[in-house]
């Protein structure tokens, strides 16, 4: 039996593949399980990259808005899909609007190589472009709130909460995260990756990613503690004292209610903040995490 004979924690994890700036036919012909980085894909000519990254967007989602899934042309012949793949950077940005002239992207997906040459999902925004807009992304003076993390627009946030949105949303969702994540996972498997990672922006998004099969690299215990302390009598439950519109007593019952209270800083009663959580999705495996059993969204 040859496992580890002595426990010693590895302080400097290895990269899953060595750094490589380019991608050659010879490399592609090698072992097909060898992961390809986004930086390597980005080194290809733009149209070659487009052929590869096209697999990231579900065709039926584009078709729902009359966008051709191959040419990415909109119903008016415009180009509502934008792809940015910088050959110097291991990151890809996909932005989709209902029409090229629309003010908002209804799908925004940002992927990047991480320091170990694995894949991080930096941003995923999917909303219904036809839903009412809440300007939670800009404060009263027009400065970006960065999803409410840098500053807040309290009046708009309150309106958004009353309308049933979660923190960081500007419109209601499109109920397409499962579809988009399924495509993303198939895309990453094609590149040879076995997992991808993300940092959930809000409690509500962490809960959604749990349902999509993610586990936690960091923060599983915190999510469990949050659930425990939101139970009647718990410290978070007690802190739902009506002191702000985002801390009403009944909010303990729902994912969104908890998410708004956490966005409002209620975790300070536990000596915690909403940061440092990191989640992982193993390709082809549902982890079955459920830190808020039988939750109502």
């Amino acid at each position, binding site marked *: *039996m040859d496992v*580890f*004979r002595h426990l010693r924690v*590895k302080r400097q994890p290895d990269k*899953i593949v060595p750094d490589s700036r380019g991608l050659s036919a010879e490399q592609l012909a090698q072992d097909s399980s060898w992961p390809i980085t986004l930086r390597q894909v980005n080194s290809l000519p733009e149209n070659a990259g487009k052929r590869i990254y096209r697999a990231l967007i579900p065709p039926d989602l584009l078709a729902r808005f009359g966008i051709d899934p191959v040419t990415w042309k909109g119903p008016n012949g415009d180009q509502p899909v934008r792809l940015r793949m910088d050959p110097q950077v291991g990151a890809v940005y996909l932005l989709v609007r209902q029409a090229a002239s629309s003010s908002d992207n209804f799908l925004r997906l940002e992927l990047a190589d991480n320091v170990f040459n694995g894949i991080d999902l930096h941003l995923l925004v999917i909303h219904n472009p036809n839903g009412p807009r809440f300007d939670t992304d800009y404060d009263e003076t027009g400065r970006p709130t960065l999803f409410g993390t840098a500053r807040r627009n309290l009046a708009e946030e309150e309106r958004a909460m009353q309308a049933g949105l979660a923190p960081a949303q500007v419109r209601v969702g499109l109920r397409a995260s499962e579809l988009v994540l399924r495509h993303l996972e198939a895309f990453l498997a094609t590149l040879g990756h076995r*997992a991808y990672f993300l940092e959930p922006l809000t409690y509500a998004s962490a809960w959604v990613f749990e349902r999509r099969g993610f586990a936690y*690299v960091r923060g599983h215990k915190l999510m469990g503690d949050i659930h425990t302390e939101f139970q009647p009598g718990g410290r978070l439950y007690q802190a739902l004292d009506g002191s702000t519109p985002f801390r009403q007593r009944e909010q303990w019952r729902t994912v969104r209610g908890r998410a708004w209270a956490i966005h409002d800083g209620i975790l300070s009663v536990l000596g915690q903040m909403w940061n440092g959580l990191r989640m992982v999705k*193993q390709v082809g495996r549902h982890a*079955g*995490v459920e830190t808020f059993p039988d939750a109502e969204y």
Partner: protein
Amino acid sequence: MSIRRQTTRAAELESLPRFRETIDAACQLQPGIDEQTRYDLKLAVDEACTNIITHGYAGMNPGSIILALDVDALRVVMTITDFGHAFEPAEAPMPDVQAALDDRPMGGFGLFFIYQTMDEARYETTEDGNCLTLVRRLHPAKEE
């Protein structure tokens, strides 16, 4: 026919009873697994998870541990996956269990228990986590 069970819990000592319950639940569905075998399986998982909790996730807000069991008439295969710091293979000797109590180093006995109770143990670190696979044969004679 193989029985599959999986549970994912936070890497904290309070999760150990849930892992034991999962082992019991899987073993109950497979006739012929005796109490001693169940005890050994639970001991090995307890020790492995305790190492992950106290060393693998040290210094960070603990993440997940995924315990998966595949049980059939011939063997029990348990895979324990975590996403904390990986362990490193090293050449240090196993603890000397014959040594006098005062001369024994602190720790290291969890691995000893695992090696004593399992027929196979494999550890690998890949992109999708650290995975310890433990195999306990139920009827070794039938495999020969």
